[in-house]
């Protein structure tokens, strides 16, 4: 086995291609430069991309079809007369209309993004910057809790909220996020540790307290990492299913995820309407990921590769 002595950072390399030698096994590694190899390469690329994109294309196409065309074989990809009314009909047909579900989901998601960013950064700052009694032991416990599947604590936490009479409110879905979680603390703490402490020391000499250092120095520097946490919190809360399924049952309290599934069961004969609503539910996700792609990808790389 070939080894190299010097350590290097796997994570810091930007996502750009680098030239590597080798052409005999074109698709295994190396840059394919010549005719037949390149044709094969593009053929594989296109085939794969078609397979990966077709379900989404099918969804878009189905969402503007009249009901009858859904079952047409071979598949009609572009309906002769696009039926845009599917969107309007589905949105207003649900009782209450989808506006309510979106308002609920947006509220929960925004609250949780704020709560998670605030609480995770405070806790991560504590672990990364302040030397206090028992810090390392507590941090080891925090890491150990990452293994615990949430199903183990699901029933007691459900009982807790039902005793407080808060089932069918948003409290059970919001409050826990304001108490952060191990994964985000770990991610942010790693990030804070990578920031030089010289700035802290200088600020302390000038009489700044820990909270000032946190809010004035570390938070502004940490904005890429906080962005990653916000995006992940967005994705989790927007798609969360088990939580709302257990805690919310009144129609006017439901989230988009739960409402979508109910809509599908009730309107199973109108597949285009279900696809239209599913597509609408995906738009915010796609938008957020598109806008934040560079930072997000960078973030997974920071937190991910070291395992």
């Amino acid at each position: 086995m070939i080894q190299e002595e010097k350590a290097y950072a796997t994570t810091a390399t930007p996502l750009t291609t680098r030239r590597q030698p080798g052409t005999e096994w074109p698709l295994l590694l190396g840059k394919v430069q010549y005719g037949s190899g390149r044709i094969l390469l593009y053929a594989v690329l296109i085939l794969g991309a078609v397979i990966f994109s077709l379900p989404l294309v099918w969804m878009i196409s189905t969402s503007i079809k009249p009901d009858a065309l859904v079952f047409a074989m071979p598949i009609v990809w572009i309906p002769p007369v696009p039926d845009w009314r599917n969107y309007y009909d589905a949105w207003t047909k649900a009782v209450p209309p989808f506006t309510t579900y979106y308002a609920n989901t947006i509220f929960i998601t925004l609250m949780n993004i704020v709560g998670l960013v605030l609480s995770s950064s405070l806790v991560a700052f504590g672990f990364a910057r302040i030397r206090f009694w028992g810090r390392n032991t507590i941090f080891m416990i925090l890491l150990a809790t990452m293994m615990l599947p949430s199903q183990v604590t699901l029933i007691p936490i459900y009982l807790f909220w039902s005793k407080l009479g808060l089932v069918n409110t948003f409290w059970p879905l919001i409050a826990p996020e304001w108490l952060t979680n191990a994964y985000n603390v770990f991610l942010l703490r790693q990030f804070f540790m990578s920031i030089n402490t010289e700035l802290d020391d200088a600020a302390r000499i000038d009489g700044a307290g820990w909270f000032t250092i946190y809010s004035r120095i570390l938070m502004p520097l940490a904005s890429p990492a906080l962005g990653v946490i916000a995006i992940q919190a967005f994705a989790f809360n927007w798609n969360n299913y088990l939580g709302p399924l257990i805690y919310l049952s009144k129609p006017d309290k439901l989230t988009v995820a739960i409402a979508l599934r109910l809509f599908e069961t009730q309107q199973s004969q109108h597949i285009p309407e279900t696809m239209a609503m599913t597509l609408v539910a995906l738009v915010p996700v796609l938008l957020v990921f598109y806008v934040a792609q560079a930072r997000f990808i960078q973030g997974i790389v920071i937190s991910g590769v070291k395992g």
Partner: protein
Amino acid sequence: MSVQTGVQPPAVPNTSSRMTQRTRDNIAGFLFISPWLLHFILLIAFAMLFSFGTSLTETDLLTGYKFIGLGNYTRMWNDELFWKSFWVTAYYTFALVPTSIVVSLAIALLMNQKIAYQGVWRTLYYLPSVVQGVAVALLWGYVLNPRFGLINAGLRAIGIEGPKWLYSEQWAVPGFILMGLWGAGGAMLLYLAGLQGIPTPLYEAAEIDGANSWNRFRHITIPMLTPTIYFNLLINIIASFQVFTQVYVLTNGGPNNATLTQVLYIYRKGFQNFQFGYASALAWVLFLVIMLFTILVVRSSEGWVHYEGELKK
């Protein structure tokens, strides 16, 4: 809304304070980490104790608790459905996780080529992994439809009559595995970062030594990627054992419990049959199963994960 609890800004240090710096740091530290301490005490420590206590009882949480010792655990031993759910979950996990690692790695190798419009290709492969939860389940319910779904339409075009997928005991889990593979583009980014972190001199040295492409792939690329593979293996095993949303939305465990996963069984016993004692015991066993496999993977990693920064013994 004032949900945030217990976080007050620590007092600004006062130069004439009677407290030593050390005491002040202790207080500040605990104030800063207090949200997680509260999380740990309420949502983890207390909840785990309570959950374990509940698993030793028979209860609907309303009319009281009847202590039955390890009764729920012995009941599980003889519960065919529990074993079914265990095998279904294990089958799903150990079929999906390795295949999705191979698929993501293959896509990453493609993306690592010098290709035109790299950003476009990367987005096409990456996009499906962004779509999660109910949306992907509803979409795939139709993609896998035996009559008019995309997959069987494609198979029909090449003269194969596709299986009944989610309506067939034999093909339902493979259907969910295909659904999972659709998201393989997510991990592709990690492999791509890993591939691009492999120092070119390694390949050049190997080439001078006469190693062909396959040998370089086998003896450089793969070993250098093992930390990434290890991370994905661990994260994916843990996540796959907790599969719930897709199965609940599409088959609710059917047909004939062929897709009854462990979390679905916990949900069914607890929140549908109100046997919260038994459901708690099921959750603890799931925890133990996940821990067992995590430990196995972590232990095995010393044998096959190659850390370049590590000192060689």
